[in-house]
């Protein structure tokens, strides 16, 4: 087993891929607050995620998702949901931007753990070009769902 493999499959990732935060039936129309939904597919490997986010009145937000995919994509969704529970929408977009940058760094960037929290564990993924999409899948769904939630909030 190579070093790179250990970096790719950090224990945090393996743990999240099994005990998945936010992995729950979607509410869809039943959702109370401002609400957005996104369905993302990685056509390369068939990984799929359905994710919804709800904006709470206090500025907080929650994320629920279901999906089918590799440990990287599932762990990434789980970490995202965990971070969302502790953050504002604004903060999440900041994390998303950092995470996106980290993933495209080809292993040349140090992860900013302060901002990224558990998402820092994905640093090793950036050395595996074919896996970057896996790590980003949930985040793409989140960005999409969030912008819907935000515009539905504005409409109200």
């Amino acid at each position: 087993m190579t070093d790179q493999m250990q970096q790719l499959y950090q224990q945090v990732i393996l743990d999240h891929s099994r005990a998945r935060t936010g992995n729950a039936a979607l509410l869809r129309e039943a959702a109370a607050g401002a609400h957005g939904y996104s369905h993302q597919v990685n056509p390369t490997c068939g990984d799929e995620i359905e994710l919804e986010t709800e904006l709470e009145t206090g500025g907080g937000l929650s994320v629920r998702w279901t999906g089918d995919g590799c440990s990287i994509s599932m762990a990434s969704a789980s970490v995202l949901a965990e971070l969302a529970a502790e953050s504002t929408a604004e903060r999440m977009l900041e994390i998303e931007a950092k995470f996106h940058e980290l993933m495209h760094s080809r292993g040349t960037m140090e992860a900013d753990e302060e901002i990224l929290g558990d998402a820092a564990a994905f640093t090793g993924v950036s050395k595996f070009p074919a896996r970057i999409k896996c790590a980003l899948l949930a985040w793409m769904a989140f960005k999409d769902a969030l912008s819907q939630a935000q515009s539905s909030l504005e409409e109200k």
Partner: protein
Amino acid sequence: MFARLRNDFPILDTRIGESPLSYLDSGATSQKPQCVIDTFTEYYSQRNAAVHRGAHSLAVMATEAFEAGRDAVANLVGGAPEQVCWTKNATEALNIVALGIDRASRGLGGDEAARFALGPGDSIVVTEMEHHANLVPWQQLARSTGARLRWLPVTDSGELDLTDLGGIVDATTKVFAFTHVSNVLGTINPVETLVARAREVGALVVLDACQSVPHMPVDFPALDVDFAAFSAHKALGPTGLGVLWGRTELLDSLPPVLTGGSMITTVTMDEAEFMPAPQRFEAGTQPVAEVAAFATALGYLAEVGLDKVLDHERELVRVLLDGIAEIPGIRVLGSAENRIGAVAFDVAGVHAHDVGQYLDSQGVAVRVGHHCAQPLHRRFGVTASTRASTYLYNDVEDCRRFLTALAEVRPFFGVTDAEAAS
């Protein structure tokens, strides 16, 4: 013989990290022997020119190489050289047939194309194990003509379910398109039975021969199919080249889809007349260097003998299947006896992508995902699988390395049997 032959493939000496390479992804694309690689050098250094259009010596040499490629294909799969049309890949070949029928169904292509016309009330039949390349074009055709798309289901053993063959392929069936060999399951389909039914109802037979031509002796006229498609890159040949094979009278009356230079006789500003096959399907500058390289590849395959290739791969697939059976938590998709060396499986508790990643870290190259066969995966209750597939350059050592690594996958990801079962 097969042990020696491995040395002809320079890429097999590559190391993946610290491990030697065990390439078990030939179902996706094959590696190339040195002689095929050398043909590119030779072609571009000695006889590169545009074919069919010039009197100069280079053009004559290029044209000869190009036409000799057709002879090589006809020698391999039967029929005359004019029955061999060059395409960019098998996908284009299948599309040429589907889109040609589409044009014929719109009244384009003159009277001689009328025999292909489809409409509401007609049906097109495929199978549940098709590669998307032999499914999506027929969906598109059904949609644009109003014909109905039906399919033969697949059994748990990964074979075509022929129980209702007579009901599914019926008097309304105008096209019956199916794969010779499943690229996921490795199953070899009973072409004779399927063709016999097609003949009873007068349906055109389109054979996807992508996974058969590289791995076993195939004779299209003997199989009595109307059209067949395969790709060079899976048969030791280069990327960028495929073959559409067809009956001459059908090829000559099927409306061409891509139009332009080198496929016409007379062009005015208002209209154009098309050449007969194969040229009518070869618009624009063709993959000439690729044809030359493919001819070399076919010469190599002929020398080895495709019957021997099939035997060799059957030995290897035995080793793979027996070895996998001893590893806990692995479910092989399909169990057909009549098969080539492709094995797709599901690892309990570990996603295919992770399986592939781990095997790669051990130098074992396999394919993961849906292998362009989403409906078939759905049939087996998964969205993705891992596939090991062999070719003539693989040996028992490759299989052993694969099996050793595969046994380590679930422990590496910390999956216990209890967990996986849940």
